[in-house]
């Protein structure tokens, strides 16, 4: 578990120091199980009982075969960097302004090529590579929330 260190970052606002933390996700009926899984250290992704395909983000039914028989299954959390960038300027949220430059990108899970998650990376821009293997970890955020993040894994061979 890594923390975002947000409680150490403050900002002058209306005469008082406000704590700055990243935007928080608000779960809905469709995504509640996903966020509950994340809190328990599990990466849950919808899978279709009929065509067996995974899908993320969650949907009411299977995007491939339209079956309503989709339910959350735990996935390995292993994948590879699909793409990345370093946001240097122009971040709109004060938290991201305060930590700029920061690395953000997308990760493709091993289970299925179109299973794509956003992630930040704790690395240097020059050291990141598309295709580099990553694995999920769970990051504590403000107000007791947890989000999945992906870290570079050093123990696995590159698969792509």
């Amino acid at each position: 578990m890594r923390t975002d260190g947000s409680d150490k970052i403050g900002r002058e606002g209306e005469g008082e120091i406000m704590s700055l933390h990243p935007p928080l996700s608000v779960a809905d009926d469709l995504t509640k199980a996903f966020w509950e899984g994340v809190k328990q250290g599990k990466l849950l992704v919808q899978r279709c009982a009929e065509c067996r395909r995974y899908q993320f983000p969650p949907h009411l039914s299977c995007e491939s075969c339209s079956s309503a028989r989709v339910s959350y299954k735990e996935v390995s959390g292993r994948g590879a960097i699909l793409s990345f960038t370093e946001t240097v300027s122009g971040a709109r949220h004060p938290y991201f302004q305060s930590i700029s430059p920061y690395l953000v990108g997308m990760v493709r899970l091993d289970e299925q090529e179109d299973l794509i998650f956003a992630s930040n990376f704790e690395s240097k821009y020059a050291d990141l590579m598309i295709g580099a293997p990553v694995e999920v970890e769970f990051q504590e955020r403000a107000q007791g929330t947890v989000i999945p993040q992906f870290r570079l894994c050093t123990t696995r061979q590159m698969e792509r």
Partner: protein
Amino acid sequence: MSTPKRHNAAFAGFGQSRVFRGPEVPLGKLAVEASLAAIGDAGLELSQIDGVVCTPDAPFARGQSADGIEFVSTSHLVRELGLAPRWTADVPGMIGNSALAAIRAVEDGECNYALLFRALHNPGSGTYGHTQETKSDEIQLSGTDVHYAIEQFRAPYGLYPPADAAALPWSQYQARYNSGSREQMAALVMQSRKNGLAFEGSYWAQYKPSELSFEDYMNARMVSRPVSIFDCDIPVQGAGAFIITTAERARDLAQPAAYVHGVAGPVPARGKVTVDEALDEQMADFRDIGRRLWSDAGCGPGDISLANLYDGFSLMPILWLEALGLCGKGEGFDFIQDGRIAPTGKLPVNPSGGNLGSGRLHGVNHFMDAMLQVSGRSGKRQIEGADLAVITIGVSWASAGLVVGKDPL
């Protein structure tokens, strides 16, 4: 190639408002300005306008609060102009979506003269607006925040434009094709600015009329690597409007028209973490538009005299070039070199500047240029032999393609 569907529609009038870099003039007023200009250009009376269509969306969630101020609906414009339409539609997406609706409406006889307008808000900050504008954590937790739906999987990571739509696919492109450096991209961005300077309605022509040098581009403030500030179109406050009518009616109007040869509408977006997803996903959407467009128009990339390719971010026209088959896969960055896309080149691209060279009116410039070029009305920008033009708009769910020509079908 399947037998093309015969279209019966034409673009027959154009108008654009003044443009600003701030919200000092309400958008409703600018939409009225543009609409009156378009109606006048076609030589029509207000009473003849019996269809009104627009895409009212601002490109960010919190921009739309007051009709006539930050966005403009058809009902606002109808009231302001005192129109009595028998057909109206407020179509989500981008201008391509509403243009296609207008074309279908006149072809189906829903109306005779459709007024299509697009009015776009420049956020007060003068910067890109998007869904992460919210600054109050209370709001974020109160249930009224935007980090629902897809944003719950993006916002916590600081993933938003131009990182998602431009930087991520560009990085992938570079890795895949060993092409796509900023040095190469400079050719397109510099040419777009140059083209925009020749268009009197361009933000740059009006306020900062100087070309962009290679050094300016290379030294530009980095936003999300490799995307710099000049790889993003500049947000402006302004409006554009068009008259769309049947081919027969267009012949009787004040100006030569641009006839619709083919159209392709947007594809429904699959589940995506980002709006536009990465390179493969964006290219799949663009290719799908291309395939259906050439089939509907009954022509191909080799028949086209010029291209107006959507360029909200500089990578997009390069992807469109490849997706439409105007150049080979992975060859887009080579294709844009050596003046090939200049107005005098083999395939002029965005001869009036597009978004990058004229400001972010979300495709108004692309429709305007294609329409005026094929009808021989581009004045000093006129490209000789511009008989057939392709227009592409947008990104995935808001994408569209059109072919317009000098001659009716």
